[in-house]
């Protein structure tokens, strides 16, 4: 799959936006001003980006508790996301959802999800809608290594295959579910191996490698659009921060993350390869970096200055009777 300059710049912009967004939330969280549970996606950017670059607003994704990266890659407004994370009224969900529930249906983003394994059935639904309406759309469900064990995930693989739905299931295997290693929780070598029990292709890719994710996802998405049914893609990757903000991570080997950051960082490697291949220039990237830096700064400032929802907002958006 050939990447043109525009796409390469979009890919870089997306990955870098996610990274800077997450690094900043990490810093802001420590100030105590960010409420609730926050799960950061830093380190895994190549996956959301490599998949979503093939999609437009009419295609759907459903996400996990670690959803910021998917939201950004699917085109959610970054300022609206930051305001949401701060629980402010101009937030994407009016401050009612928070980090774990960011959604924007108009962008085809069906929602982050606080329930591990919550997304796969919903993604079958989006695939069913696409198939029934015959509109050529696809639906992508993200699920972690931990979430891949949930019954909902297996049921969804079966259903998507039985109905030959245009669905792609992307397992983000970052080695841990909270503090538990995938080596403990999961009785198989590769999670992609489970695909064969559901008559669909199962492919393992290096989740740090944008190009690999982009290519494999592209093939799966094309196949799905063409009526060829679902695919399971397992991306092996690392998360840079703790399970959630506040996690001391003593279950990890001391140098585990540092090694990856130094040698396998998805953004560094993408930039190096794209530049050395002459696909993009250092300058292009530097200018994108400046944009992003301004954007995130602006997003945080806006969020902090934004009003919180008020009493009259408590009971809107729900049928109420009591």
């Amino acid at each position, binding site marked *: 799959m050939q990447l043109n300059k525009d796409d390469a710049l979009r890919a870089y912009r997306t990955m870098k936006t996610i990274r800077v967004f997450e690094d900043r939330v990490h810093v802001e969280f420590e100030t105590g001003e960010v409420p609730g549970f926050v799960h950061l996606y830093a380190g895994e950017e190549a996956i959301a980006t490599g998949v979503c670059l093939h999609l437009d607003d009419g295609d*759907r994704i*459903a996400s996990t508790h670690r959803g910021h990266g998917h939201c950004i890659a699917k085109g959610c407004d970054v300022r609206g996301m930051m305001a949401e994370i701060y629980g402010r009224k101009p*937030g*994407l*969900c*009016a*401050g*009612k*959802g928070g980090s774990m*529930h960011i*959604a*924007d*249906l*108009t962008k085809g983003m*069906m*929602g982050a*999800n*606080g*329930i591990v394994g*919550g997304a*796969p*059935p*919903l*993604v*079958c*639904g*989006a*695939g*069913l*809608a*696409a198939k*029934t*309406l015959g509109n050529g759309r696809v*639906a992508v469900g993200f699920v972690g290594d931990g979430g891949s064990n949930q*019954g*909902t995930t297996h*049921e*969804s693989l*079966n*259903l998507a295959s*039985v*109905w030959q739905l245009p669905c792609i299931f992307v397992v983000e295997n970052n080695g841990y579910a909270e503090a538990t290693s995938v080596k403990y929780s999961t009785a198989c070598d590769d999670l992609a191996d489970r695909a064969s029990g559901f008559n669909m292709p199962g492919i393992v890719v290096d989740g740090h490698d944008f190009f690999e994710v982009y290519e494999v996802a592209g093939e799966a998405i094309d196949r799905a659009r063409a009526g060829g049914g679902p695919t399971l893609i397992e991306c092996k990757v690392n998360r840079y921060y703790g399970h959630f903000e506040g996690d001391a991570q003593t279950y990890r080997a001391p140098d585990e993350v540092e090694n990856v950051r130094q040698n396998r960082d998805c953004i560094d490697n993408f930039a190096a390869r794209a530049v050395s291949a002459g696909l993009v220039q250092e300058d292009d990237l530097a200018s994108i970096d400046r944009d992003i830096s301004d954007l995130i700064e602006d997003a945080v400032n806006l969020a902090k200055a934004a009003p919180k929802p008020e009493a009259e907002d408590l009971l*809107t*958006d*729900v*049928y*109420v*009777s*009591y």
Partner: protein
Amino acid sequence: MGIKTFQQAISEALALEMERDERVIVMGEDIVGGSGADGEMDAWGGPLGVTKGLWGKFGDRVLDTPITESAFIGAAIGAATTGLRPVVELMFIDFMGVCFDQIFNQAAKFRYMFGGKAETPVVIRTMFGAGLRAAAQHSQCLYPLFTHIPGLKVVVPSTPYDAKGLLIEAIRDNDPVIFCEHKLLYTQEGEVPDEAYTIPFGEAAVVREGEDLTIVTLGRMVHRAVEAAEALAGSGIDCEIVDLRTTSPMDEDAILESVENTGRLVVVDEANPRCNIATDISALVAQSAFDALKAPIRMVTAPHSPVPFSDALEDLYIPTAASIEAAARELAEYRS
């Protein structure tokens, strides 16, 4: 117009809405029956034949599913947020336990949690209630559990007419609706117009007017209440019967108004007694129509036990016209 069964009323509602709106699809286990097999298709139309014939009319918009309620009910929910209006069957309400998350954490919460930016027009049709000797895992009511959850609308019709009008309303509603059909009502007959019509949610039906005592109830128990009221009329006790029709939203005004007139309340609920619709209504009245009450409230419910299998026990388990009558008599005679 004509006399139709509860079952026909439901089937008609589905067919009419599928004709009217291409986005309406129907799915569930064996709601066609015969998929992939060597014999006939549409062999079942659901275990009791309620959806029989739909597949012949609407083909691929009527889908059999594997036995994976989380996946296919979740899929109905996901499809509802992305352009369809699915009616999905949870064969027995008792099976909610294998797919409850998709219903109460996903469908019920999207609209609020996403700041009003999602609509989830899904209807979950399901069969409930005791009386078929189907034992502990196939006889529960459980609508109180759904009623507890904000974001779900809950319908419990008692007549063919209501079933049709409420189901069409449910399909056109943009929130998730749990549509609960009592399995012993399917053969119930009544006048049902041929064309489509809707009955708004949150409007109870006063199925009998009376001066002395209010009976609030729902589902199959409406018929037992009517029986009891007829017996009581013989003793000069004139009962008003309020059929809730929907438990969420619930028609508080109708209940309060009736109790303000009669001053006496019996609530009849086939569900288990703790945190059920009977307690819900009793509490409402004790809070909002207290001054009108001339006697304690009486609740007539199933006991706090699983549903027993043996016919002898099951008949004792389900509230009867006689137990309703006894409760009403006690209240009518009550002097503080």
